[in-house]
């Protein structure tokens, strides 16, 4: 019986040994083994065998790492590139589809990445950004919640004195309308801050000239931005010059020029006035009067919790007495009735993306959108990559021969994989170049769409360039991996014999990829339809008054004493049906005050606007009870009109003897309720109509809110507004020396929907992109399958199939796939869109028809895409395909 050497070690040897030497050495080993085994026994022979094998494990004997010496590296790569390019050129249609699809996908993804990167970059330029927090307010009163980005003046000092963890604090107020004059230049500045003197030391807004420490010290000092300086002073040096501020033309000295605040800062300004200038603003000590913005810098971000606790203590200590004074409730009573009021801290870096309080400085982004867009970008790119994979594998039969030949002359599978990967890299890089070109073309439109002002040069930064290159590499790898592995798995013998299965019809992977693509497309189409519908609904919703034909003119204050004369003259022209002066118009009636139902302890927060007698007829609100203010009743100066929501909230039951008390004035003011106006939307449609009040803008009512000296509403006669506006401008210039600024009320209201409009446009664009790419892929696939099934179709035709029958046959398969995609996408899309719609108090519904419409739309598009191919194939002369048989 022949003994056999230990199998394990034999296998080990066979594995590591150079194949040149393997057999001979193995033979020697076995020969010796047998001799030893005879002479000294199996155990001895085994042991010595093992030793020999182990000792043979040395450099001369082991397989070289590179089995085949790569002496031809460079040449091979050149060959791959050459073949790759030839393939691209030979099949221009497929290559074109692939390239275009990939390029579009990449362009979309890159743009979204730019957008996301920009959104994430807000406020990061501030030194110590992670230690800066904003103090904001929130609370609950009489059942309604409120929040505000603003805080009150005494907080900053209180924190600095009592909380050691707070290193620095700064406050500033924001004047949205501040006329400024220098020599003959006069503008209304919309972004004027009035700030504590340490503003430029706290924040990183560098000064081009002027001393950051002293520029804001003292009264009547202002620092202006570079662009503001250009506007007023041209090329002159503004430092030291006097600019006239406000209605009363206060002389203010320019003490510094600041660089324009960067775009990605949530704090924007054109001018910063020194805090001491406005005594009341920053110096008042009312804790409950939230009118300014407070920011604090802590020793370390971890102190936030401790600081919040101390802030709560301070709030309680100081608010208590104030609450008693204003509302007449003690702190305990206040809390017991379910109310609350607190100040809280927001990290600076969270403000832009996560903060959505009342009174934000500048419109914020929304971190949800970032996720959504990121997801969409990923989807679009994946659709493009899937296309690439599908098309490449579908066309595998054409490359099969090449693979077979290469393998038989000695190519290793790994080399072939490298070849195909490098081909897809070529595609990827060409697509990247195309994508960059597309981005360049589309950039301005992108900026408008995204509401941003990015520059193309952002792309030229090294970080961006590196990531684009990495991106291209990654896409090439991912998209090319599957085809590379699939194509190189062919056995040469099968290929050369012609037995490569045309198993393309039923490739389940490919089919599921198509389903996935269409799933995404259908969802996006559905989303786009829903957003559009909601938008249309909001735009056409009856707001409770006639918003057409109303012009809003600003700078009412500049009429000074000419108000009456102005109104009079306007009334003499038939174009101007009615004119009214007011403190605020929809959609921006945001001032609010505390009011109490007369004779009770019931307090409610009401939004408030001050108006004149003509307001009702100008705006065409409808009264549902009582009457509006009228010059016939002099007592109307202490009258108040509520909307239905307020009336219900305060639980009035009749106008007789109904009174409302307002506490803003030094002495509580008693107002007689004379009428109730039907609810109208004076704010965004995201909320239901809040309770509001209207008073005449006279005398002591000024304590409640601004005077009715803010905006002019003019109802125009229907017809072409252009000539009427010209006339209006002429009249305006007679009575006012300020610029004539106007807008249309219905456009202002529409502007409120800006974010929804933007969303609608974006989703629409993405939906189109997705479907275009998916259809591209379908086109390529259909084209190819049409060719492959050529023989089958010809035979069918010969056997008597008619053209329609053939077409239906070809369409059937794809239709099934799309139906499956629809079945999956419809519930998913419906669910997601319902969630989105829930964010609106006033919303449309998603009907079954809508969903079906979305599905049919994509089905039809897909069918249209493949119909050309199907018809072409169906009409082909069968002879062409069967000639070779």
């Amino acid at each position, binding site marked *: 019986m022949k003994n056999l050497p230990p199998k394990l070690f034999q296998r080990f040897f066979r594995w590591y040994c150079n194949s040149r*030497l393997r*057999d*001979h050495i*193995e*033979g*020697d080993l076995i*020969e010796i083994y047998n001799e030893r085994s005879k002479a000294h026994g199996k155990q001895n022979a085994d042991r010595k065998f093992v030793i020999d094998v182990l000792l*043979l494990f040395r*450099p001369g004997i082991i397989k070289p790492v590179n089995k085949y010496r790569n002496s031809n590296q460079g040449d091979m790569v050149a060959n791959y590139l050459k073949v790759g390019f030839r393939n691209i050129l030979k099949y221009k249609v497929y290559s074109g589809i692939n390239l275009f699809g990939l390029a579009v996908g990449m362009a979309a993804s890159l743009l979204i990445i730019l957008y996301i990167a920009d959104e994430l970059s807000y406020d990061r330029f501030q030194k110590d950004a992670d230690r800066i927090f904003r103090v904001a307010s929130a609370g609950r009163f009489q059942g309604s919640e409120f929040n505000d980005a603003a805080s009150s003046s005494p907080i900053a000092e209180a924190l600095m004195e009592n909380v050691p963890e707070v290193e620095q604090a700064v406050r500033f107020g924001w004047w949205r309308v501040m006329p400024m004059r220098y020599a003959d230049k006069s503008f209304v500045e919309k972004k004027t801050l009035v700030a504590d003197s340490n503003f430029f030391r706290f924040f990183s807004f560098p000064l081009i000239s002027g001393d950051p420490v002293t520029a804001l010290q003292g009264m009547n000092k202002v620092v202006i931005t570079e662009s503001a300086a250009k506007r007023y002073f041209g090329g002159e040096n503004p430092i030291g010059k006097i600019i006239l501020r406000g209605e009363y033309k206060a002389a203010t000295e320019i003490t510094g020029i600041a660089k324009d605040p960067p775009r990605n800062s949530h704090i924007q300004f054109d001018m910063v006035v020194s805090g001491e200038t406005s005594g009341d603003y920053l110096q008042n000590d009312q804790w409950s009067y939230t009118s300014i913005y407070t920011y604090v810098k802590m020793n370390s971000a971890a102190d936030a919790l401790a600081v919040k606790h101390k802030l709560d203590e301070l709030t309680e200590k100081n608010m208590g007495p104030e609450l008693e004074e204003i509302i007449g409730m003690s702190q305990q009573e206040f809390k017991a009735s379910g109310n609350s009021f607190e100040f809280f801290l927001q990290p600076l870096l969270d403000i832009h993306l996560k903060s959505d309080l009342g009174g934000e400085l500048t419109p914020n982004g929304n971190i949800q959108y970032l996720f959504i867009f990121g997801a969409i970008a990923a989807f679009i790119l994946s659709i493009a990559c899937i296309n690439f994979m599908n098309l490449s594998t579908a066309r595998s039969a054409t490359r099969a021969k090449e693979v077979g030949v290469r393998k038989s002359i000695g190519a290793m599978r790994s080399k072939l994989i490298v070849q195909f990967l490098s081909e897809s890299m070529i595609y990827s890089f060409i697509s990247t170049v195309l994508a960059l070109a597309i981005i360049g073309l589309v950039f301005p439109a992108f900026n408008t769409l995204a509401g941003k002002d990015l520059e193309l040069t952002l792309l030229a930064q090294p970080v961006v360039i590196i990531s684009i290159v990495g991106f291209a590499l990654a896409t090439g790898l991912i998209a090319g991996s599957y085809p590379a592995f699939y194509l190189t798995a062919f056995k040469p013998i099968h290929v050369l014999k012609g037995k490569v299965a045309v198993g393309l019809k039923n490739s389940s992977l490919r089919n599921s990829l198509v389903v996935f693509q269409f799933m995404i497309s259908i969802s996006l189409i559905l989303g786009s339809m829903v957003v559009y519908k909601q938008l249309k609904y909001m735009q056409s919703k009856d707001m409770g008054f006639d918003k057409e034909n109303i012009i809003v003119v600003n700078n009412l204050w500049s009429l000074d004493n000419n108000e009456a004369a102005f109104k009079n003259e306007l009334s003499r022209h038939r174009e101007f049906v009615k004119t009214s002066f007011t403190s605020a118009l929809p959609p921006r009636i945001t001032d609010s005050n505390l009011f109490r139902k007369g004779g009770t302890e019931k307090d409610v927060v009401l939004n408030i606007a001050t108006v004149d007698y003509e307001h009702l007829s100008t705006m065409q609100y409808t009264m549902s009870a009582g009457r509006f203010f009228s010059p016939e009743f002099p007592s109307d100066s202490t009258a108040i009109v509520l909307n239905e929501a307020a009336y219900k909230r305060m639980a009035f039951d009749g106008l007789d003897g109904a009174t409302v008390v307002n506490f803003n004035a030094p002495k509580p003011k008693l107002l007689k309720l004379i009428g109730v106006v039907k609810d109208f939307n004076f704010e965004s449609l995201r909320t239901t109509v809040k309770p509001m009040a209207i008073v005449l803008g006279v005398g002591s009512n000024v304590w409640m809110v601004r005077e009715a000296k803010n905006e002019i509403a003019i109802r125009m006669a229907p017809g072409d507004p252009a000539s009427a506006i010209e006339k209006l401008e002429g009249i305006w210039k007679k009575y006012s020396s300020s610029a004539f600024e106007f807008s249309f009320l219905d456009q202002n209201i529409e502007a409120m929907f800006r974010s929804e409009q933007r969303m609608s446009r974006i989703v629409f664009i993405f939906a189109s992109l997705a479907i275009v790419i998916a259809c591209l892929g379908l086109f390529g696939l259909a084209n190819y399958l049409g060719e492959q099934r050529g023989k089958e179709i010809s035979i069918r035709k010969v056997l008597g199939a008619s053209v329609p029958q053939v077409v239906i046959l070809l369409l059937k398969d794809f239709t099934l796939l799309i139906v499956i995609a629809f079945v999956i996408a419809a519930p998913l899309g419906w669910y997601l869109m319902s969630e989105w719609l829930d964010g609106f108090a006033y919303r449309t519904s998603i009907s079954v028809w809508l969903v079906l419409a979305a599905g049919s739309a994509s089905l039809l598009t897909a069918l249209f895409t493949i119909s050309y191919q199907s018809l072409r194939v169906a009409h082909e002369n069968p002879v062409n395909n069967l000639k070779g048989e």
Partner: protein
Amino acid sequence: MRKYQLGEFEEIVILTIGVLYKDAYGVSIKKEIESRLARNVSMGALHTALVRLEDKGYIKSFDGEATEERAGRPKKYFQITALGKKAMAYSKETRDELWSAIPKIVLEVKGLA
């Protein structure tokens, strides 16, 4: 004059191949060296030397028959090439020269000179 790289063990191996003439293959070389020189020769060392000698061109190989003792693996026979002979000769000459250059007195040990 060319330099012929020939290590000590390699020299022994190539000499043994010469001794065995047409019968030099792995196992036989190993046995011959072991019996003549009374030293153990591991397969690893031997085959490495053989590979090196072949790479240098001093020996060449030709296949022999497969036998049952070798479980069907063929033998590989070696023989010395012309280059190999030159290398051996060079080595022998240089050794001899050195030997003759040694003064008699150093070598007064039994068995030498």
